């Protein structure tokens, strides 16, 4: 037990780059792989002076003792991780699984909706529903054909799969809510829709199902610090109540979530985040490093192509 949760960090065993900005990390943590349930998340610190970043668990393998995280490089920390988190390196901190697991039992027919980065965390839910005997309809949304990932993994656990792309380069042309409409046309006995993605997308999904009264669960990912209910930074408005996404969620009834409040609150450190990113990019430029990593598909072993990231990028 000691090895996995002691000071040695959490080893990255595999990595896959889905696009210029999206990558997955397979992290060794047998205890967490054993405990993780669909719908839960972790908080990661890539290095000692880093910030705590909540990331939804995209997959777990109890036999291999691994947990898979999918990260989108949008800010300083996630871009830095894109550079530094290579196979063989370790994460300084990883704690979880956090949040209340999604209830998967007792559903006959469900629609699992993932948009963009939300495609990854919806996967264990779709698989979980299938294992519990439900008829699973997957609805996945990407900007274009080149950004599609894990479609085969979904095909293996979904009874139907509806792919949506913004430009129509694969599947249907449209957003995931168009995909939900398609599913609703085909089936009038949907028990539940589960949607994970950017807040604006989850809002659109909730609006799509509201009139039909189909229960719609969304997974919220607001700004967090500790993830254990201690700071209240992740509070969200659910109907008349205030809830903490970290310990009361992250799943909530999409028809009750105040998405506008959530989106405003997500922007509260926008200025600091931008300043940090600018500063970091400038440092990278001065150190003659490229801020983005070459794509894995073009380079068999991205780790070999880069200098040891922890030596240079972190220093102290």
């Amino acid at each position, binding site marked *: 037990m000691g090895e996995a949760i002691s000071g040695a960090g959490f080893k990255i065993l595999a990595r896959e780059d889905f696009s210029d900005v999206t990558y997955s990390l397979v992290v060794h943590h047998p205890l967490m792989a054993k405990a993780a349930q669909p719908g839960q998340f972790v908080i990661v610190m890539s290095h000692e002076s880093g910030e705590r970043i909540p990331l939804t668990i995209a997959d777990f393998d109890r036999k291999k003792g691994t947990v898979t995280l999918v990260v989108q490089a949008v800010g300083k920390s996630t871009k830095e991780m894109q550079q530094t988190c290579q196979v063989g390196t370790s994460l300084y901190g990883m704690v979880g699984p956090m949040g209340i697991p999604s209830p998967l039992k007792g559903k006959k027919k469900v629609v699992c909706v993932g948009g963009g980065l939300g495609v990854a965390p919806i996967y264990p839910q779709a698989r979980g529903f299938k294992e519990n005997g439900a008829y699973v309809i997957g609805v996945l949304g990407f900007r274009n054909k080149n950004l599609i990932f894990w479609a085969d993994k979904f095909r293996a656990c979904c009874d139907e799969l509806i792919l949506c792309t913004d430009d129509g380069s694969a599947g249907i042309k449209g957003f995931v809510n168009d995909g939900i409409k398609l599913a609703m046309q085909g089936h009038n006995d949907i028990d539940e829709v589960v949607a994970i993605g950017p807040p604006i997308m989850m809002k659109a999904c909730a609006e799509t199902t509201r009139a039909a009264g189909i229960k719609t669960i969304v997974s919220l990912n607001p700004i967090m610090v500790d993830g*254990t209910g201690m700071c*209240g930074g992740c509070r969200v408005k659910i109907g008349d109540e205030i809830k903490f996404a970290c310990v009361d969620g992250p799943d909530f009834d999409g028809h009750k979530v105040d998405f506008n409040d959530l989106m405003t609150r997500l922007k509260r450190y926008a200025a600091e985040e931008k300043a940090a990113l600018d500063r970091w990019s400038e440092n990278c430029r001065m150190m003659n490093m490229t801020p983005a990593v070459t794509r894995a598909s073009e380079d068999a072993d991205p780790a070999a192509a880069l200098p040891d990231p922890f030596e240079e990028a972190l220093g102290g």
Partner: protein
Amino acid sequence: MAKKKKTIRSIPQQRTAVRELDPQVRVKNFEEVNCGYTLDQALNEAERCLMCPDPACIAGCPVNINIPKFIDAITAKNIRGAYDVIAASNLLAAVCGRVCPQETQCEGVCVVGESLEPVGIGRLERFVGDQAIKEKWTNVPYAAPSGFKIGIVGSGPAGMACAADMAKPGCDVTVFEAFHEPGGVLKYGIPDFRLPNSVVDAEIANLRKLGVKFECNTLVGRLFTIEQMRDELGFDAVFIGTGAGYPSMLGIPGDTLNGVLSANELLTRCNLMRAKEFPNYDTPIPLGKRVAVIGAGNTAMDAMRVCLRLGAEKVYCIYRRTRAECPARAEEVHHAMEEGVEFHWLTAPVEVLDDGKGNVRAMRCIKMELGEPDDSGRRRPVPVKGSEFEFETDQIVFAIGTNANPIIGQTSKLKLNKRGYIATDENLATSMAGVYAGGDIVTGAATVIQAMGAGRKAARGMKNYLRIRDTGAEAAPESPVATFFGIDLRERNYARIRAA
């Protein structure tokens, strides 16, 4: 050693002042405000203790430190001896000397205090604790392994105290912490200018010397449950000291606006995540120009003084009662006033007003007056009709208490009380055999020393449960200084050093 009996007239009449950083200078940094006593100052203050035959101060201390005995040792310039006396009851002298509300505990019942200012017991305790850290003294008794494995959930003051008491009789103790660093509220909550993190780290290092293991990044309840600790992971007894830590909301319109945050969030960002050193550390911190802090407890005082140091132009304290009822330590209120915090007593927030972009623009407040006493014995504040006014502010920090953290309740079958705290008997045993709980997760928000007292009490319960006979390792040797092959015999782990 016969001593001349001291009387209230013969002792130094004035309490020995302690050097403090200039308020104008210190509000620009996070250095510790109270510089602590020098040896001469400590000796002078120790002189003021009357050595009462029936000392009230011991009973006034939640962990019953033998206060006259340690002060007597200081008078004899035997600081190591003083440390031994304190360490017998309290492992964290340097911490408690700084953060205990002495005025309501030991110093509150000090006999000298009836006619003069009470003996500065807290300052003396801190002096001894700091010397111990400086001289690297430890009180590690040698104990044969008892064979019992103890799991402790939470590395705050309750968990640390319990860990020490279980490690001393030779148990194999592991402390689990959800954050990436141990220390709990001592690390994330109390700022450096009041309790430097280096002091906390020194105390944790002492625990490690006792053989206590710390496992960080471990969220008990979710990574494994209390039941699993007992049934699968082989812990013979478990102590839960997870703290209350679910901040109470203001419950007024606008309390989710950007710029409204809990004191816990502000302090965690600043202290543990070191946002005060942003951008060298990645965690950002909100910076308001005119900050209103709601509440007047120690956490509120910490939040106000942190905001001043982060560069706020104005910091206001909004409290619905008066200074007399405010729960913070007297020294903290005094320091906050010195540093320029503006106190608005008898004022309560009614609504947070936005700037149209989701940020705080102002706050509407109402004046209060004190009415009849409530259940807590304090006079209940009642709103004064028609006294509402607008108050310009761009950041609101609320420090109005906490509720029970739900994680352990969500993930175990432990019995909770109706407020969601863990239900225990008088020995702090929970509804599950071998599982004990103490500190804020049982009582609701309280002080560091009360949490430590609970940790020690639970340890006694656990020892009884496991039928561990106390080794009496707490009795300090009184023999004169002797060394044995260069090893100080007072260092009670010498047997272990020899073995190693």
